């Protein structure tokens, strides 16, 4: 894939929006933004065709910077709005951006049902293992034992594997990457956008401000190095002996399957219903 020229990315940003952005210096969300823009350009989509839908959180602030149709919804509900948009205008490319709390705590119900329905929506889930925007409380992906502002003695709950959850719930496409593995992230986002049906890309991203500081993980650079150290292509990871797997994070395409897509099956119902209606006249 030839590199997408910087000026193209520049063209997709909203410059009349008051930059600088709201994120902490060094936050992974800016890297994701760049990656998303490159994959959109690479996908050959028209700006008018793209709808970015987000929930509430640091991740939820991403769409406002992009010169497409952007909808910043309520906490956890991005997928419900996205479902409505996609049903209303199937020709649009609908992409949601959610945080881990957004997508799997308050919005967990919507995530599993969107995956089950398999509507043609791409869901980018930024997993920073914490509630960034509200100050580092624990989220469904906070690791057991980690510190959070609501877990001062260490977190007592096991965590969700967002990708596994999405796969089990029925998504057509599931992939995982990190903001360190940018080239891979560009590609995976492109693949998810191109894939018909519900596609999830789990993006591991450092929140040094809240999660990192409380857990003494060092600077954002140190946290990025951790992604580098632990990240492993899923194909290689699968060959590891069971006992060794927990030390690494499998990255890449985890699930890619062809399943019935909601819009297409609904069209068939409409055809049948209108034929029955006409027969009844």
């Amino acid at each position, binding site marked *: 894939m030839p590199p997408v020229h910087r000026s193209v990315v520049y063209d997709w940003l*909203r410059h*009349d*929006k*008051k930059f600088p952005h709201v994120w902490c210096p060094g936050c992974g969300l800016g890297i994701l933004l760049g990656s998303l823009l490159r994959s959109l350009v690479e996908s050959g989509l028209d*700006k*008018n*065709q793209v*709808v970015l*839908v987000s929930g509430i959180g640091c991740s939820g602030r991403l*769409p*406002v910077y992009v*010169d*497409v*149709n*952007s*909808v*910043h*919804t*309520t906490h956890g*509900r991005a997928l*419900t*709005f*996205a*479902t*409505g*948009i*996609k*049903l*209303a*205008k199937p*020709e*649009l490319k609908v992409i949601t951006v959610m945080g881990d709390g957004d997508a799997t705590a308050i919005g967990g*119900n*919507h995530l599993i*049902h969107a995956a089950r329905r398999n509507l043609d929506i791409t869901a980018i889930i930024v997993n920073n293992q914490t509630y960034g925007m509200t100050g580092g409380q624990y989220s469904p992906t906070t690791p057991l034992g980690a510190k959070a502002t609501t877990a001062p003695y260490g977190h007592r709950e096991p965590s969700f594997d967002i990708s596994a959850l999405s796969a089990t719930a029925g998504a057509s496409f599931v992939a995982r990457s990190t903001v360190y593995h940018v080239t891979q992230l560009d590609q995976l986002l492109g693949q998810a956008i191109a894939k018909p049906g519900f596609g999830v890309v789990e993006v591991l991203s450092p929140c040094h401000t809240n999660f990192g500081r409380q857990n003494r993980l060092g600077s954002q650079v140190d946290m990025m190095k951790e992604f580098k150290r632990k990240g492993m292509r899923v194909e290689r990871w699968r060959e590891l002996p069971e006992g060794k797997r927990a030390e690494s994070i499998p990255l890449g395409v985890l699930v890619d399957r062809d399943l019935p897509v909601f819009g297409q099956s*609904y069209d068939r*119902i*409409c055809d*049948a*219903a*209108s034929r*029955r*209606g006409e027969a009844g006249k």
Partner: protein
Amino acid sequence: MAKPRAQLLQGNEAIALGALAAGCNFFAGYPITPASEITERMSREMPARGYPFIQMEDEIASIGCCIGGSLAGKKVMTATSGPGFSLMQENLGYACIAEVPLVVVNVMRGGPSTGLPTNVAQGDVQQARWGTHGDHPAIVLCPATVAQCYELTITAFNWAERFRTPVVLLSDEVVAHMREKVVLPEPHEIEVIDRRQPTVPPDWYVPYKTDGSLIPQLANLGEGYRYHVTGLVHDERGFPTRRADEVEPFYNRLFGKISRHFADLERVKAYQLDDAEMVIIAYGCTARAAAAAVRIGRERGLKVGMLQLMSIWPFPRRPVEEALTGKRLALVPELNMGQISREVKRVNDGRTQVLRHGKMDGSMITPDEILGRLREAK
């Protein structure tokens, strides 16, 4: 021309048919007694017309889905009852602040919580006004007959589209399940209002900049006008702002676009009020009992009349003031402990004596009870 045909219709069916007549082309809902018939009817009607219908995973999702559909240009409706209406409140506020046309039907049943799921009540009147957090305008309509279910659903769509705001149709279990003979108007007799579209090319477009109407001409998603929609307070371009000099005008416009049309938004029906010495102010199923009480009372020589409120919010202040003026007594019967009577008392301002008659036993107020209260008070 064929003679208009009388039909026997249920209140909930009339809402579904009214929605279709108003141009509803998108429905998302979640089943709940006593509103399920609306969702069921729509699940038959929408696919037959090629329109989206979806049963979502809950009511939060249903209203979210509707808002998405509306942003993309559809005329959307969802239907629920108390527990679901409670779940919808946050996104109802979103539709208000982001100015998204939307019709929400709440068929009232006994609450709070699961309450009396199959019994009638009118306990959600103040919730329909104040249910979502933050100060905001609200438009709420309330039918008492099957014909009004049809008519007010059309009005709800027209106002949602015209003002770019959510409109709540507050029905109740009795009106919802009752069957009555109705003659529906011919399509050409129905006025249908659609939201205004941008009149400038995309390059000149400032989404929330308004003309004298104070109502923005928001483009449907995906039609070449790229802008930002958010539940945060935003500037004219749609971008979040906290600047006092942008925040205050924003709120002023949000309230102003409704408040300058208060007179237009008053929908009431007067029964035998001309010579009345006593007035009953009622709404929803209770207005039916009140109408019967007026009839029976008149036969017995009582000079009593009734004002039915078909619009509840904004509270139809002027017609209520008029109805109270010069009366000896006003009675407000309702299936709650005084949610509208307190509004009537507020606007009464010393004009007359206002009595409330609240009932919460899961059944309707009867004409006899109303007459009894009037007799006691005499």
